[in-house]
């Protein structure tokens, strides 16, 4: 890639940002462009000083695994939100994919397949996620109903389907290789952390380097301009809904490998956490702005806060209160940093 051609002024597309580590001033400027990473650094130092258990390789691996579920979905959500849409059904899709996968691998048809029985189950789980994403996207495209409403309906409906399908029962994975995968390591890092990191890099490349990525910004920034320019906005949005559906299903599967089981209540409130992480990372609810580096920071921020407060034995409900307050505080700070000063219009 021709990275040498320097952009004029800081570009939102983060392709120049990788070089920001030379010297203090440029790292500082980089942090100001991604306030969430400044925040990540602060909470990291804070917990390292406050508790003995935080600063250890084992704990960092923990954090990565704990956040991988949220993180995977947040990758897809970033695309959908840059498009100016939103997907509230991801939590329900997590439960559906997990239940399908765990159930299907136990079907008698696949009994003689050995460990290979996991394969059709995972394909079915991921397929369900992509399909539901496609359905969300199709409805948004064809009816023009706001994505918030469409996916709100999908969130309720899919969750209902999960209860119908499971008969309100939890499923347990009979094939132990499935649960072993969730606990396995590869080159010294938990496999699930690898999955998360690899997909993060992949989606980052898609968003910052490909035509689809550029179109994603254009559609969210000025939909009419995108239509005028001949971008097929409907199918484009549908693809992004399918991507977030895929990631929600993948998150459901990785989550169920961690537990060796699925419950119909799996993934409840995940949509809220994912949106929180994405917004913390600088993605705008109105679309047009955001990037994966920010989203990764947002995911880590939530992961570190939850982990750190847990280690400090802050009661769980206070953790929610603190996270809520931090969300608003960070976004308020962001607004202050990006204000036009005294010239701004008074409300």
């Amino acid at each position, binding site marked *: *890639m*021709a990275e040498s*051609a*320097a*952009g*004029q*002024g800081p*570009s*939102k*597309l983060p392709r120049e940002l990788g070089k920001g580590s030379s010297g203090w001033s440029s790292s500082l400027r980089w942090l100001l462009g991604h306030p969430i990473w400044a925040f990540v650094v602060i909470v990291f130092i804070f917990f390292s000083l406050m508790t003995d258990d935080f600063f250890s390789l084992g704990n960092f691996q923990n954090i990565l695994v704990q956040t991988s579920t949220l993180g995977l979905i947040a990758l897809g959500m970033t695309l959908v939100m840059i498009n100016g849409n939103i997907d509230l059904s991801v939590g329900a899709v997590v439960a559906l994919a997990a239940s399908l996968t765990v159930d299907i691998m136990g079907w008698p048809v696949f009994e003689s397949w050995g460990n290979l029985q996991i394969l059709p189950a995972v394909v079915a789980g991921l397929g369900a996620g992509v399909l539901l994403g496609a359905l969300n996207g199709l409805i948004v495209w064809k009816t023009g109903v706001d994505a918030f409403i469409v996916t709100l309906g999908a969130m309720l409906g899919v969750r209902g389907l999960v209860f119908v399908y499971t008969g309100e029962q939890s499923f347990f994975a009979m094939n132990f290789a499935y649960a072993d995968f969730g606990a396995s390591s590869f080159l010294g890092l938990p496999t699930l952390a690898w999955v998360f990191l690899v997909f993060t890099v992949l989606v980052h490349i898609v968003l910052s*380097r*490909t*035509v*689809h*990525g*550029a*179109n994603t*910004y*254009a559609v969210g*920034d*000025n939909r*009419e*301009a*995108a*239509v*005028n*320019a*001949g*971008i*097929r906005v409907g199918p484009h949005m549908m693809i992004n809904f399918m991507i977030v559906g895929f990631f929600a299903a993948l998150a459901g599967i990785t989550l169920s490998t961690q537990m060796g089981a699925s419950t119909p209540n799996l993934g409840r409130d995940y949509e809220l956490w994912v949106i929180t992480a994405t917004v913390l990372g600088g993605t705008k609810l109105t679309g*047009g*702005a955001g990037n994966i580096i920010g989203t990764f920071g947002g995911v880590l921020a939530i992961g570190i806060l939850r982990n750190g407060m847990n280690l400090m034995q802050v009661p769980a409900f206070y953790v929610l209160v603190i996270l809520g307050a931090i969300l608003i505080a960070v976004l308020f700070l962001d607004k202050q940093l990006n204000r036009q*000063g*005294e*010239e*701004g*219009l*008074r409300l």
Partner: protein
Amino acid sequence: MSDVKPALRLEGIVKTFPGVRALDGVDFEVRPGEVHALMGENGAGKSTLMKVLAGMYQPNEGQILIEDRPTIMANPIEAKHNGVILIHQELSLAEQLTVAENIFLGELPRSRLGFVDWKILDDRVGTILQKLNCDFGPRTKVGKLSIAKKQMVEIARALTHEGRVVVFDEPTASLTDAEKVVLFDVINELKADGVGIVYISHRMEEIFTISDRITVLRDGTYRGTLTTAETDEDEVTQLMIGRSLDYSRNESSGEFGDLVLEVAGLSCGKLFEDVSFNVRAGEVVGFYGLVGAGRTEIAETLFGLREPTAGSIRLNSSDVSIASPAEAIANGISLVPESRKEQGLVLGMNCRDNITLPQVGDMTAGPFVSNGAEVAIYDMYRDRLDIKAPTWRSLVGNLSGGNQQKIVIGKWLAMKPRLLIVDEPTRGIDVGSKAEIHNLIRELARSGYAVIVISSEMPEILRVSDRVIAMYQGRITREFTAAEVNEDNLVQAISGISGDEAAA
């Protein structure tokens, strides 16, 4: 000349929308190497016709012939590949993307695997920008550019393809004079290359400068094609609105009342600096300047929407500080904002409720809104401003632009202001209703209001103002009386050129 094969011909184009026949059998042709102006009032069907041409709408009847080949264009990309390029009237740009990405939006050059080929992109865009004398690079973010420069980005799209026909839809609305020269150079160059140009504009002087032929539409029908060299403004106007217009200048009476507003040294950051002027009762003061010169921002400051960083505002000879629109209204200031549909009206509400909106809190009978009082106010201003609406129950969104603007003006008159600020009073209003609004503004001044009119249209400013204040980049460059102002010195004043060094 008539034996030249047209680059593009439209035959009997009909386009209907539910309940409207937007285009009714329109014929239009562009020859290679000619500039063909398309004129008509708002709603005459110009934009619809161009959208048909650009593949955004499919015509119900009729056909499009490109070099005598019947062609169907299903979307804007197909139109581009057929050599038809549309430069949009509203800026059709994604602010967060770079200049290069915007210029090639929808067809970014790809290398393998769908990656954007930045090298080719930068090369091609760099060449185009150089040709247009732009001082920004391909990687600049569009959101950081001024409106005029954004318009240049939009124009740059015309040069991305080997076009047969390039349509410019009101390209000069926000260009400075220097950029207008570049644009006309581009058009002439395209023309020399044998490209057919369709030029849409409301500005007669531009049409007569640049075009070879003029086609006029009215109410979706074809009214005729004139050769520019053989016609004049009056004939074109006749075709457009079916009658002649009175373009007379305002006769200043020179007798005004007390000072209503005195502004001294007013500044607001970099938006405008050290602005001083005053307005008397019965006087219309026109603010003229380019988009971004700070005129609207002054109005917003007077109305309490922005906080001044320096300077003083005196109303009726006493110092005031205005911290909010509510205080401005209480002090007798009203602002008819720039954008009627976004800032001035609640389109989904009826006429009466829109007019009484700022004062509905005072019109109560017990805990309820007093219906009778509201209707009485509406009736009064309907008669006074001659608002044409079926009943007070009609939704404002269904009225014509001129009547909508009267509703906004009526709304603020109902607040009994002493100072009325009108920002772009006739934007998006057709020629006929324009004259009516102009007369209304004169009428209001005569009845004792102090009026500030902000406008980007020179004929409008010249018609309504008793005094004209010219602004350039946030500063007042000159103040004219109605007697001394003319088009030349006004253009010089708003371009930042002082009288002596002005080029012809």
